[in-house]
């Protein structure tokens, strides 16, 4: 393998990895405020991209994407208000089944609103043929968009959670729901907000990857599995570790793709998921003593 080829593979790995990281962060935001793993997380990406593709015909691209993100946020918030809020204190089994039901309904709704055709947003800059040279490897400008947007999302979330009142309130809920309530934080709205937030960043990630990976109504479930793998790999609830874990899984996937038939690509992440669940369900970066305190 030449140096250029290795760099090419690494770039591809980092690109898919950063998408997985965004899905994983979406999982984490909701998990932190509610203790629920939202099985419909992958669908948010697809819904966002689908709406943007439709709006794109009527208005300029940036406006279409912004509107798509807002609409998806509204959908996320509504889903929480309608389905999750009334059963917040129910058992885990019930909550799992409800989010699975939501993901099916979203998928089927997309199938009937749009159709099973593969769609894509146009490239943000240039077209599918334009490339930029990088250390002998060539990459599409869209890859830079993906990396840039993912970076901005991660940085933005960090600032939001660290420095804004709402962000801090959400973190307080994640730490101890009861204590947060006693401090006068409206915990219910924090949950709704967490659904809106993860729907929003999902939609944004869906839009920015759409030109590269295309968008089809049933692509949400595989994304969700991979995002979950990454979330577990980094330790559920830990968004910064999710970025590292995402890049790791992305690189691993591209590495297998370069050596084995493409059909095994899916199997890699599932195998990693099963392995990490068995060997170290607290994630790669968790400290041993903290891990002992949590139930799996």
């Amino acid at each position, binding site marked *: 393998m030449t140096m250029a080829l290795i760099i090419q593979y690494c770039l591809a790995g980092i690109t898919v990895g950063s998408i997985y990281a965004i899905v994983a962060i979406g999982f984490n935001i909701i998990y932190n405020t509610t203790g629920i793993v939202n099985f419909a997380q992958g669908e948010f990406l697809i819904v966002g991209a689908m709406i943007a593709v439709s709006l794109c015909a009527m208005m300029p691209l940036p406006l279409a994407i912004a509107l798509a993100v807002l609409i998806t946020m509204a959908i996320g918030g509504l889903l929480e208000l309608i389905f999750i809020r009334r059963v917040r204190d129910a058992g885990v089994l019930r909550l799992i089944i409800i989010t*699975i039901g939501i993901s099916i309904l979203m998928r089927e709704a997309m199938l*009937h609103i749009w159709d099973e055709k593969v769609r894509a947003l146009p490239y943000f800059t240039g077209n599918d043929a334009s490339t930029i040279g990088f250390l002998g490897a060539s990459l599409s400008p869209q890859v830079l968009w993906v990396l840039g947007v993912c970076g901005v999302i991660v940085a933005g979330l960090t600032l939001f959670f660290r420095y804004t009142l709402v962000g801090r309130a959400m973190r307080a809920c994640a730490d101890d729901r009861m204590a947060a309530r006693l401090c006068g934080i409206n915990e219910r709205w924090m949950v709704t907000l967490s659904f809106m937030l993860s729907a929003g960043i999902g939609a944004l990630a869906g839009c920015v990857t759409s030109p590269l990976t295309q968008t089809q109504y049933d692509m949400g479930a595989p994304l969700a599995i991979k995002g979950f793998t990454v979330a577990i790999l980094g330790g559920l609830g830990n968004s910064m570790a999710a970025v590292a874990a995402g890049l790791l899984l992305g690189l691993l996937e591209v590495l297998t793709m370069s050596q084995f038939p493409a*059909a095994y690509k899916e199997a890699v992440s599932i195998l990693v998921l099963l392995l990490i669940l068995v060997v170290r369900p607290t994630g790669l970066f968790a400290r041993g003593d903290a891990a002992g305190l949590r139930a799996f």
Partner: protein
Amino acid sequence: MSPGRYIPLVLAAVAIVAVHLGLSAADLTSRMTQITMAAYYGLVVIGLCLLMGYAGQVSLGHAGFFAIGGYVSAALTTCNLLKSRQAWPVNWCDAIGLLVEHRDLYGQVMLSFKPWPAFLASLVLAGLIAWIIGQPVIRLKGHYMAMATLGFGLIIYRIVLGAEVFGRADGISNVPPFELVSIGGWRLAVSDDISLRVQNYYIAWGTVLVAMMLAINLVHSRVGRALESIHQSEEAAHSLGINTFQYKLYTFILSALFAAAGGALLTHYNANINPSEVSVMKSVRYVSIVAVGGMANLWGALIMGVVLNFLSLRGKFGSYDDAVFGAILIGIMLFAPNGLLRMPDLKTLFGPIWRRSHG
């Protein structure tokens, strides 16, 4: 040992005969095909009900076990070992009577496994796989177990789609009939032969009743009580000296066996199997049926399984097939977590109004 618990079995047997008589009186015997298929799906549902309702473990990978049963039976009974007849494993199988020569559609001579050994092999394999993946998976809880079993189902789906022996996207067709018994001229066979439709209806329902009896006995035994205590509080059960891991693992294996048996029999009945049986949606469908039936309610799950699968097989839901199951899943979990056959919780149903009027 109370005979009371077997009364529903007798009633079910009466109902099965009544449905047959009713359908033949109304000249609708063609409907029996779908009822027979629904019965085999019912086997999966009974197993999953034991796992979910009694052991409290959710599995999103049961279509995978169904597929192991169906695909292994189909592959073994349709393979052609004629070329490697001299090789010792084949020779050995031939010598003890596991193989049979038959002709395929084009009149070509084939040497394949007989349905009985193939069926048993598929069950053994399903049980073994359940045991292996159960070791780690059963130790997980809630979300983690759901995702892990979902991952298992997806791997099986990929294998089925990618492997030449399983026919890739086309699946396996022309699966021979499964001759259960043959005494003199009288034979009992699971096959897609229309003239054997009535016979197959009773074979399928007989199997379901046997499975049901096994499940009922299990639930009312020491094991069943142990499972129930695990479901209520695992820590408490553990402190009473119940080996919670072992019980959950055995239930997992048992439910995998039920699913595999359903898969194998349905494959012989349809004479084919294809990857759509392995999709994640199928696993979700089984889970939703158990939920509609009321989780820890074997009869509820069975009835709902047969009704919903029958309607789905008749194409009553059209292109909204999956959406119907998704909507059912959410609706039941929101409004009637104890199943449709029990009274819905009115307080949840009218929650907002009720709260306001008392606030």
